[in-house]
């Protein structure tokens, strides 16, 4: 089965290299279209005026924060069951991007909250869960950096993310429960404004832009990780040998 051969890092390295420019181009195109639609075409919101346009990056960032964590959990399951090194490397490649999207979701949420509801931080259920998701990302990054042996770091990180992803819905439920307990169900703080069709499109396209961007960045990062894992290996197992065939030294 030809696809399976790409599960080995050495075979995946050149493939990732070829895919990066395509995804980068896609991300750029979608971003331009999405921003154009969001900033210029979409009408003003009758309540919030112009500032609601932050939604076009806040919501996609929040989606990506969740999607990337679940993708990491999926790679984690593959890393633990099939013992494939590449899926663990993909997890490590995705984590920083996921953490950045989570932080951006929090940042843009706060900046959207101030003019709209008067406070930067309103302990809204979704925002609070996103904050906790950031803690989970930081926990993963701290764990894999604390363990020297890469093999153990991969598996430990995979198990942590799997346990974390099981907890995410429970955390969201408990935070929602806690939020309604304290603030009463009436105020749904981030009730997104009534969505005109064009707004939905703009947000969707921005989401795809973020998604293709995340793929591009994690492919570039996984290539760096594959090389880092090859450093110092004894010559006979030098993966770089095959890599040097793709004139790695020439920096392709």
């Amino acid at each position: 089965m030809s696809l399976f051969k790409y599960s080995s890092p050495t075979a995946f390295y050149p493939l990732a290299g070829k895919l990066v420019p395509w995804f980068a181009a896609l991300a750029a195109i979608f971003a331009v279209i999405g921003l154009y639609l969001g900033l210029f075409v979409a009408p003003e919101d009758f309540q919030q005026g112009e500032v609601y346009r932050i939604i076009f990056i806040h919501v996609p960032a929040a989606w990506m924060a969740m999607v990337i964590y679940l993708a990491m959990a999926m790679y984690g399951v593959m890393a633990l069951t099939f013992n494939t090194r590449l899926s663990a490397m993909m997890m490590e490649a995705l984590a920083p991007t996921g953490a950045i999207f989570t932080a951006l979701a929090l940042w843009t949420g706060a900046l959207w909250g101030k003019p709209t509801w008067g406070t930067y931080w309103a302990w809204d259920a979704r925002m609070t869960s996103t904050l906790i998701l950031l803690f989970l990302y930081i926990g993963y990054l701290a764990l894999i950096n604390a363990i020297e042996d890469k093999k153990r770091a991969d598996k430990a990180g995979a198990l942590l993310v799997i346990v974390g992803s099981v907890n995410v819905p429970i955390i969201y439920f408990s935070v929602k429960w806690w939020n309604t307990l304290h603030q009463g169900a009436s105020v749904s703080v981030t009730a997104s404004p009534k969505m005109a069709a064009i707004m939905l499109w703009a947000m969707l396209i921005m989401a795809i832009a973020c998604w293709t961007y995340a793929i591009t960045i994690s492919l570039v990062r996984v290539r760096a990780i594959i090389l880092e894992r090859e450093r110092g290996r004894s010559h006979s197992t030098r993966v770089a040998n095959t890599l040097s065939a793709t004139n790695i030294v020439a920096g392709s």
Partner: protein
Amino acid sequence: MTATLNSLTQIDSPVFQPERGFIVAMARDARLAARSKGEAIQALAFFVVVVSLFPLAIGPESALLKRIAPGVVWVAALLSVLLTLPRMFANDHADGTLEQLALSVYPLPTIVAGKIVAHWLMTGLPLAVLSPLLGLQFGLASGELAVLCVSLILGTPVLSMIGAIGAALTLGVRGGSILLALLVLPLYIPVLIFGAGAVEQAMVSIDFSANLSLLGAIVLLAGLAVPFAVAAALKISLD
């Protein structure tokens, strides 16, 4: 002399009694803890001291103290359990007995379950039993103290279970205890919310049974899944 050898009792193969691993591990840890009582008492002392700091910091007026009581007691319980987590596997890892446990004929999840329950009996349960006494400092009424105690009895096992996963993952890692806190505290949040929430609702005499039943549900679910996760984490750390 060989006669006594041959008369050794014959036991059926241990594989047929996997649950005995639970009893073996729990009894073993209980006896070990009895030998070094200090550790359990330290965690309890830490709990008392931390809870007593808040009135000193916030001032004696009882209205405010009463409002923050559930949160303070629960967070103090969380941190006290957190302190004792590294010891759950570290001692056995250091002297090599953890490998023998992993290679025991009893399945590792049963042994891990035994260790978790022993850890709970040593730290979580005493905290819960002591908590009503500390609640008095905050002016909680007897009914609310009872809810506080029950919520801690239901919640602390989950703290030991999730903590065990963190302890197993960070076994033998430099700076492991801070890392352990970083991994485990976010996962403690639902238990904290339901636990402290139950007591708050009791204080404003809203029906708090929902929170307690949710805590109970988490204990059961975690009880089924966590031993396997911890066993997997130990195998990864012992690799």
